[in-house]
């Protein structure tokens, strides 16, 4: 039986019926990881022993009748989430030696739900990148074409799900880091509303934008796992104390009459290629499903990228100050004095993209430039948020492409940060406004998958998931697996 082709709901039902044990299921994924990970480089750390121990505990819970919906289901954690007693690198040399002494809330909740931890997935260094090429551990490869990038920063999580080296993975999304890689590897990925999932224990890149989410083949799988991680956490002041809907139960909400906004700014430019064709086909599909499609405008949205590249670096320049070689992480050999310790530890520990953003961030916050950059960016951010708010007074959801193009060649954009940054042109807006957004596969450009993006109003995850599920009920792109991993 191809255990790796089953959905989370199917796995859960089969485990419940004792068709196979969680240990068998876990071993199946561990075997797949052993054979495929060397080429994909998608896991930084494989926690085989921990996984089997988790699986044995899950099997006991199943036997004892105390199992929940996710008990015994293996999961991969992006290596940005702190895992107690397990190395947590954030894709950086800086944390190559860092064994976290505690669990992130997301990790804690998934453990409490009875899931099995397979390992920690590769990622762009400190989540800064759109191709997974900034990782200290080397780039992840796209399971659809090993010469292509899987997107980033959650490229490892995207690749392990696409290649079915895990049924589900966690991701984080600061400017598109769940949705863009999900699109580039042909899976579903949801970035919830800012504040829906606790950031506690998630190593911060840009605190006002970072949000944890789920990457899985289908919206249905995403709903099951989002249920487990969503909800208020008193340890994160920005998490929101608001009831969590029953996402799976609401998955089949009727789509008839749903008003979907076609974001004018997303369709105006650069969408005349195959991606545009595929995304337009999705609009037709939704019309056929009974949704009403109307054009809406967010006039300030084209300012997203420059706004983001002021706000995010500003926050990261401060967030990454704690990596100073004093208490944890990389420390240079034989520092001469304190300044030498700082300079060499940070100089050696951080890669060039991280350094570029720290320097940009320090610059935009510095005396004399703060008003012109940081403050102005915050004002534009408010305008973009207001645009979305106005749009959602007319429609229930917004739709647009996830990424301007399918997966590109490894190395193609590494020397051109601006071109690289433009990869996030469609995804950043949702982060700036704190909105939930999701990418689902909608077809292929040649042999490479393409994604379509749905954006919802604040706390509109349920609506996003049900709309995605409706589409996936009449399409099978989310079931496609690259030939080498079938």
């Amino acid at each position, binding site marked *: 039986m191809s255990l790796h082709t089953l959905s989370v709901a199917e796995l859960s039902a089969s485990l419940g019926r004792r068709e196979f044990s969680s240990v068998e299921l876990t071993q199946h994924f561990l075997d797949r990881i052993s054979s495929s990970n060397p080429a994909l480089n998608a896991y930084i750390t494989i926690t085989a022993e921990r996984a089997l121990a988790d699986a044995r505990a899950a099997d006991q819970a199943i036997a004892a009748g105390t199992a929940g919906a996710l008990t015994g289901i293996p999961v991969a954690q992006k290596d940005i*989430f*702190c895992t107690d007693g397990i190395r*947590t690198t*954030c894709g950086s040399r800086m*944390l190559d030696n*860092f064994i*976290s*002494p*505690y669990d*992130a809330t997301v990790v804690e909740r998934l453990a409490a739900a009875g899931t099995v931890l397979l390992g920690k997935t590769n990622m762009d260094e400190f989540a800064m990148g759109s191709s997974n090429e900034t990782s200290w551990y080397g780039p992840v490869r796209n399971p659809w074409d090993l010469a292509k990038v899987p997107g980033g920063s959650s490229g490892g999580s995207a690749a392990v799900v696409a290649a079915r080296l895990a049924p589900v993975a966690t991701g984080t999304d600061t400017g598109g880091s769940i949705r863009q890689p999900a699109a580039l590897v042909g899976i579903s990925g949801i970035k919830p509303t800012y504040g829906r999932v606790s*950031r*506690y*224990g*998630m*190593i*911060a890149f*840009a*605190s*006002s934008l970072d949000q944890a989410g789920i990457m899985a083949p289908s919206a249905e799988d995403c709903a099951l796992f989002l249920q487990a991680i969503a909800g208020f956490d*008193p*340890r*994160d*002041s*920005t998490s929101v104390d608001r009831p969590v809907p029953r996402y799976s139960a609401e998955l089949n909400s009727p789509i008839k009459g749903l008003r979907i906004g076609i974001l004018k700014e997303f369709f105006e430019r650069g969408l005349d290629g195959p991606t545009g064709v595929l995304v337009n086909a999705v609009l037709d599909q939704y019309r056929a499903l009974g949704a009403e499609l109307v054009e809406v405008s967010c006039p300030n949205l084209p300012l997203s990228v420059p706004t983001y590249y002021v706000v995010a670096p*500003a*926050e990261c*320049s*401060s967030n*990454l*100050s*704690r*990596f*100073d070689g*004093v*208490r*944890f*992480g990389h420390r240079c050999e034989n520092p001469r004095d*304190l300044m030498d310790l*700082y300079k060499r530890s940070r100089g050696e520990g951080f890669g060039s993209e991280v350094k570029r953003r720290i320097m940009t961030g*320090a610059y935009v*916050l*510095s*005396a004399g430039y*703060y008003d012109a950059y*940081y403050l102005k960016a915050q004002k534009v951010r408010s305008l973009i948020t207001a645009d979305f708010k106005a749009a959602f007074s007319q429609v229930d959801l917004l739709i647009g492409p996830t990424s301007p193009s399918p997966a590109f060649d490894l190395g193609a954009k590494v020397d051109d940060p601006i071109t690289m940054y433009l990869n996030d042109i469609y995804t950043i807006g949702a982060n700036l406004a704190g909105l939930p957004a999701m990418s689902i596969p909608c077809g292929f450009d040649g042999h490479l998958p393409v994604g379509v993006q749905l954006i919802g109003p604040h706390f509109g995850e349920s609506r996003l998931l049900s709309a995605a599920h409706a589409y996936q009920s009449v399409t099978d792109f989310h079931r496609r697996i690259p030939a080498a991993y079938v």
Partner: protein
Amino acid sequence: MNEQSAHAGWEVVIGLEIHAQLATRSKIFSGSATAYGAAPNSQANLVDLGYPGVLPVLNREAVRMAVKFGLATGSKVARRSVFARKNYFYPDLPKGYQISQYELPIVATGTLDILLDDGSIKTIGITRAHLEEDAGKSTHEGLGAASGIDLNRAGTPLLEIVSEPDLRGAKEAVAYLKKIHTLVRYLEICDGNMQEGSFRCDANVSVRRVGAEKFGTRCEIKNVNSFRYVEKAINYEVARQIDVLEGGGTIVQETRLYDAAKDETRSMRSKEEANDYRYFPDPDLLPVELDESFIEAVRQTLPELPDEKADRFCADYGLSRYDALVLTASRDLADYYEAVVSGSGGASAAKLAANWVMGDFSGALNRDNADVATARVSSAALAGLLARIQDDTISGKIAKEVFEAMWAEGLSADAVIEAKGLKQITDTGAIEAAIDEVMAANPKQLEEYRSGKDRLFGFFVGQTMKATQGKANPAQLNDLLKRKLAP
């Protein structure tokens, strides 16, 4: 000497930044304890250590205390205030930034009245008071060439109270500092312990020619940890600046450190070397939004404030302004005083009680480095002693002896009087007998007195007191002596 006349032609301008450590049980953004003196790093959790992924959560108690201060100083309590990050690298600053408040502090624009030496009242402006976290401490003792870092203090809540540059001399500055010190202890938001660093101050000092409109260039003197040192540090700095200016030099804006051992200030860093702190709102913390009901609830917890209490002491007990201020300088002392008054006959004993509390009692506290709460003589015991003075059981002089015995042995006044046989002699016959003995033993002095040497009266008082072991009622003794000695 008047402070101004000491620096003829110059006006001194001082503003103080006071850091009051708020008396919360846990830290401002983490659940760690704030107790002083624990083993290094035993009170630092992952949040205090700035571990990857951890987040701050605001301690509401710190907010409540800041609001209390704001209300007590008639300041504007901000309905919305914002925490900001102050970015700089230092080993005792685990996150590489300090969480503070910058553009929108929780408390703004208040005032505080201080009493000047000449008896006049001066109103000092409070620019702002904001919440922030303290840094840790670097330690070098016993570590050879290495440095250690103790992060127990990291994350301790501080209220930074910034004054307007309204202070015109070291004495004024100290009066203001003491007033704030009194106030924060009244409000029970800070223990005021300067040795342990829970109350410390930086002074911004400049001088200008009398009549000049613009302020001179200021220097900031960092972390001076006693009232006496604040006065000395400011005086040194004022003299230094005047010297420089009168010598044709200019003052460089800089941070200076006071060295108490040498009684001088030394340059620490100049403005050019100063950090660009790159303040920006902390995205990990929501703005602090306070509603009226919260502020009103805090207002209900305000105690009688020092100025109100001093006014009441003047009115109700007929005390001088000075006595009232001394007695209200701490809430403990004021409470103690009021307990003594009520225990020893009410308002009629008020002046006597004031003298004793300010005199022998405070003297004993200082001598033994004790505080009111742990004093060896309770308010009830002192009231008992004053009752024995008032009913003529003992004289004021004997009472001092009784008080010392009470303090040393923890006994009541009556027990000491009984044990030592100190009860005053008010029996006329006994006093007369003693006088007769003294007169018989000193015929020469008696004759001289009677021939007009009046000042020998004191000699006879002393001798008779001696004969009664000091127990004769002084007033009675005087009367009887005068009559008996008369020729």
